[in-house]
């Protein structure tokens, strides 16, 4: 929710998050370097610069793996949501660590020749027609370029001005970057003799990431088919009973197999709004009503439940839906109203009114 951009919207929570993040990175690299310097000495010793390159690369790939696990993990259990909250800072920090690795590699391995170091990265090994001998460093450069664009466009300014759809697509490239990095590391191993432990770790992590994504994908798909609203004549859709919804909470319903809406129960009755937060598509139906506003569980954007507008001075708007209550059943008109349209909440007949009438 912004009326004026700031460089970083810090709050107490984010400060603690960032502090832990930086401390984690420093600790990782320090331990890696100390173990590396003390364990291998004499002829087996690795140069400190080489060690720094390895420490930063291992740190970056660990961070990237965590980043890719946070999304599905938070969907499986809300315990992981605090990590999701500030994932962007995690991503930008990961890029900076990877950048150190890339920069050190370019200057250390290519900086002392007569060929331009950047050109040398692409040409020193020109076996582009070989599979196992394929030059692995250009793959790293490509991955780093993707991570750069993602880090550079992570500010809310870009989210708004590139439109959330373009932004989201751009940030999906993280999977391409991950694939390139896995190849970069694997080929690097094949062309060098590295401990099998490292390879096993890399492979194991990749399997965990893929499994997590598959498991959440199947779960969401099942839940969507279970929570599908039922047609109820004249285009209205029966989305369930008012008794299914706790006060100030919502039920997420899928309309016509694709759109998700959040059906909120609140003091004035029932209201239906889009489930998609205007900020970063967070699941509004998994939030709750705080101070009279639907509050997104991801970063706390707020909307008035009866018109889908952020309270002034904010200007975000999301679509609303017409609702009515028949008996205890909630009926929703699947045609979305334009973002910010006022809809009178459907009042809930009191539980006992049926007996008295």
């Amino acid at each position, binding site marked *: 929710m912004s*009326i004026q951009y700031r460089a970083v919207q810090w709050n107490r929570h984010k400060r603690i998050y960032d502090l832990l993040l930086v401390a984690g990175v420093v600790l990782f690299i320090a331990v890696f370097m100390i173990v590396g310097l003390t364990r291998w000495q004499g002829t087996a010793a690795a140069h400190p610069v080489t060690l720094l390159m390895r420490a930063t690369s291992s740190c970056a790939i660990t961070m990237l793996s965590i980043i890719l696990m946070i999304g599905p993990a938070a969907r499986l259990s809300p315990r992981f949501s605090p990590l999701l909250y500030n994932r962007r800072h995690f991503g930008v920090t990961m890029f900076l660590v990877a950048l150190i690795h890339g920069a050190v590699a370019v200057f250390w391995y290519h900086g002392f020749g007569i060929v331009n170091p950047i050109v040398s990265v*692409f040409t020193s090994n020109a076996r582009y027609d070989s599979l196992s001998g394929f030059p692995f460093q250009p793959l790293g450069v490509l991955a780093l370029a993707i991570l750069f664009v993602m880090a550079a466009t992570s500010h809310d300014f870009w989210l708004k001005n590139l439109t959330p759809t373009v932004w989201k697509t751009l940030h999906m490239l993280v999977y391409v970057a991950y694939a390139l990095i896995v190849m970069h590391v694997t080929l690097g191993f094949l062309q060098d003799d590295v401990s099998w432990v490292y390879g096993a770790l890399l492979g194991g992590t990749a399997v965990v990431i893929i499994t997590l994504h598959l498991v959440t994908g199947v779960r969401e798909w099942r839940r969507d088919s279970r929570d599908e609203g039922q047609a109820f004549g004249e285009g209205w859709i029966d989305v369930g009973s008012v008794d299914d919804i706790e006060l100030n909470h919502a039920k997420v319903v899928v309309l016509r197999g694709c759109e998700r809406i959040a059906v909120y129960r609140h003091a004035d009755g029932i209201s239906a709004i889009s489930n998609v937060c205007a900020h970063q598509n967070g699941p509004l139906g998994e939030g709750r009503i705080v101070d009279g506003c639907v509050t997104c569980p991801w970063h706390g954007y707020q909307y008035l439940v009866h018109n889908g507008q952020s309270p002034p001075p904010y200007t975000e708007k999301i679509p609303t839906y017409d609702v009515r209550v028949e008996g205890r059943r909630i009926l929703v008109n699947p045609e979305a109203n334009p973002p910010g349209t006022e809809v009178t909440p459907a009042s809930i007949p009191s539980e006992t009114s049926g007996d008295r009438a």
Partner: protein
Amino acid sequence: MPVAETIILAVASYAILGVVFAIWFVFRGVERFDPVAQGGPVSFRLLILPGSAALWPLLLIRCLRALKESPA
């Protein structure tokens, strides 16, 4: 290997043009582009500089389009 040199020259030219454009964009262009950015602090402007340099053709097209729509 001239192929590699040519590609890198192209990428470098793109980046240099991007930086020049971005410096103008983050201090001037952006004001017309997004009302929320008006009067934004320098730290914010510097933070969007790398992205502006990377995506400059896109932003340039949008700026030109905005200029055409509102003939001053």
